[in-house]
């Protein structure tokens, strides 16, 4: 079966005072139907730019190359009307800061119902559907709460309202960019559980962008690890996290501060994440890599299959779990 969305050799160039920056450099991965893919990376990894390219929300002057295939159709080269219909309907989004995405002067129920009204649904049907969506998103007393304004909702409730709004268009793919980063841990756990159950029950595909490996580990079936605008590694989440095939993934896993083990600070990586503006030659990770040798400094590794379903951009992928 062909994937719902196929990202193939995606390149994003952004103009900057220092010249053109290649913020995404040849990224490929698939999102199969009804599957959650986690896109993980630190600052400068290009994860958000990759996600923005998928929904067509890049800053002005951005130049793209490669292909984005939505059910086989190349949407990167589709006309703007087609792209607009795709965004918000077939692909819906939720962000880190729901307050920035919600209109402060409009009742939340009205905002969630907007897309339904525009599709010609009758008023009483819209209301019934909005109550359903609120209920699905876990907002208590939906028929009362839909009259509230965004500022009357707590952070967690606002994110639930965003989820209701995203579901209103009956999307096939939900793009969630750091959806729980601004929330307290107890609220985060509840929102992640909600996203998981919605994904499963509605048969949605989800692209979850996060800097937090712990979030991705709990929600994503597959994970794409990005570094300096490129894919470092991708594969099934549990396999990637338990047996990384890239030294960067291994370091990320080891750096995660756990409540039950005290290992995060044992062997910290040196240096800072590489930025697209100063991307080292060869393998961009080599200056921080404990396995780096001559070949890594000169030859840029290609992303290759290293095991069933497992892809790595390390010349020495086979050594990662052994060393």
């Amino acid at each position, binding site marked *: 079966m062909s994937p719902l969305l196929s990202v193939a050799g995606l390149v994003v160039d952004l103009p900057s005072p220092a010249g053109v920056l290649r913020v995404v450099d040849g990224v490929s991965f698939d999102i199969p139907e009804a599957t959650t893919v986690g896109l993980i990376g*630190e600052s400068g990894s290009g994860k958000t730019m990759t996600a923005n390219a998928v929904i067509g929300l890049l800053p002005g002057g951005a130049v793209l190359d490669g292909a984005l295939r939505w059910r086989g159709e190349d949407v990167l080269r589709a006309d703007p009307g087609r792209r607009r219909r795709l965004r918000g309907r077939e692909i819906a989004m939720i962000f880190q800061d729901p307050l920035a995405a919600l209109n402060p002067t409009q009742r939340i129920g009205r905002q969630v119902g907007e897309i339904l009204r525009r599709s010609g649904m009758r008023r009483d049907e819209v209301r019934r559907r909005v109550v359903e969506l609120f209920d699905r998103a876990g907002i208590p007393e939906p028929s009362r709460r839909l009259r509230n304004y965004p500022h009357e909702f707590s952070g967690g409730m606002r994110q639930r309202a965003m989820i209701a709004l995203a579901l209103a268009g009956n999307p096939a793919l939900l793009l969630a960019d750091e959806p729980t980063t601004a929330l307290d841990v*107890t609220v985060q756990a509840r929102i992640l559980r909600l996203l998981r159950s919605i994904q499963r029950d509605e048969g949605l595909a989800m692209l979850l962008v996060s800097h*937090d490996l712990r979030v991705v580990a709990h929600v994503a079936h597959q994970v794409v690890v990005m570094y300096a605008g490129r894919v470092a590694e991708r594969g099934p989440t549990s396999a990637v996290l338990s047996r990384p095939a890239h030294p960067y993934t291994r370091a*990320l896993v080891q*750096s995660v*501060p*756990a*409540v039950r083990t005290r290992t995060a600070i044992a062997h910290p*990586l040196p240096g800072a994440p590489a930025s697209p503006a100063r991307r080292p030659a060869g393998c961009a990770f080599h200056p921080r890599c404990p396995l780096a040798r001559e070949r890594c400094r000169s030859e840029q590794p290609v992303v290759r299959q290293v095991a069933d379903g497992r892809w790595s951009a390390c010349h020495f992928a086979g050594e990662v779990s052994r060393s």
Partner: protein
Amino acid sequence: MIEVRELTVKFKRFVAVDDVSLSVAADETVGLVGESGSGKTTVARAIVGLQRPDSGTITLDGVRLGPVARRPKARQRAIQMVFQDPRSSLNPLMSVASIINEAWRTHPDSAPTGDRTMAVHRLLEDVGLDPSVARHRADELSGGQCQRVSIARALAVKPRLLVCDEAVSALDVSVQAQILRLLVDLRRRHRLSMLFISHDLGVVHQIADRIAVMRGGVLVEEGPATEVLGSPRHDYTRSLLDAALELNTHHGEVGK
């Protein structure tokens, strides 16, 4: 060494900190954990003297501390703070060397007697920075480098207690691990006491000997780190632990 007793801080009628008692012994690191609005930052601000308590006392070696402006210089510098956002807590246009020299101007009794340039270099090396960083302006540095400079500035005046308020929360996870490691090493090298405030139980666990948990201005539980995390007594601590995500649980388990 530092002792907070029955501290209460109100903002108008809102009780931000409600009768909190907490102490940090010499060479000890205490982790203070809580969600937003728990009052943990207000406790920190009261300890460094930036927040006047409505009632309760804060003592250093048994001597009561007032607001920062009324503290004798030696007691001001004994307690230093490292903030969450390293970029906004450093003047972006000042060189790293002048940032550190400024700390010595404020607290001349902690200033080195010999060559100050050499002293700056030693201090930077102590926090894992190359001495050449001294010439750079803060806005030329990465987030992790800025946080190391903030720590160097705090150490420059030879404090006894370092109060770290979400000091690693804004950093990339690979850099976060470096800074936590640095704090653990510095603590040992300089025999520092530390009050380490974070919303992240996992982060606190990497560094704290004891952990105190706050909720809604109240300290709900306090004890050795292994006990608080291993067998929490308070329901709220248990719910924080349930919500804390781990890597090694199976896909599909978010809390309970």
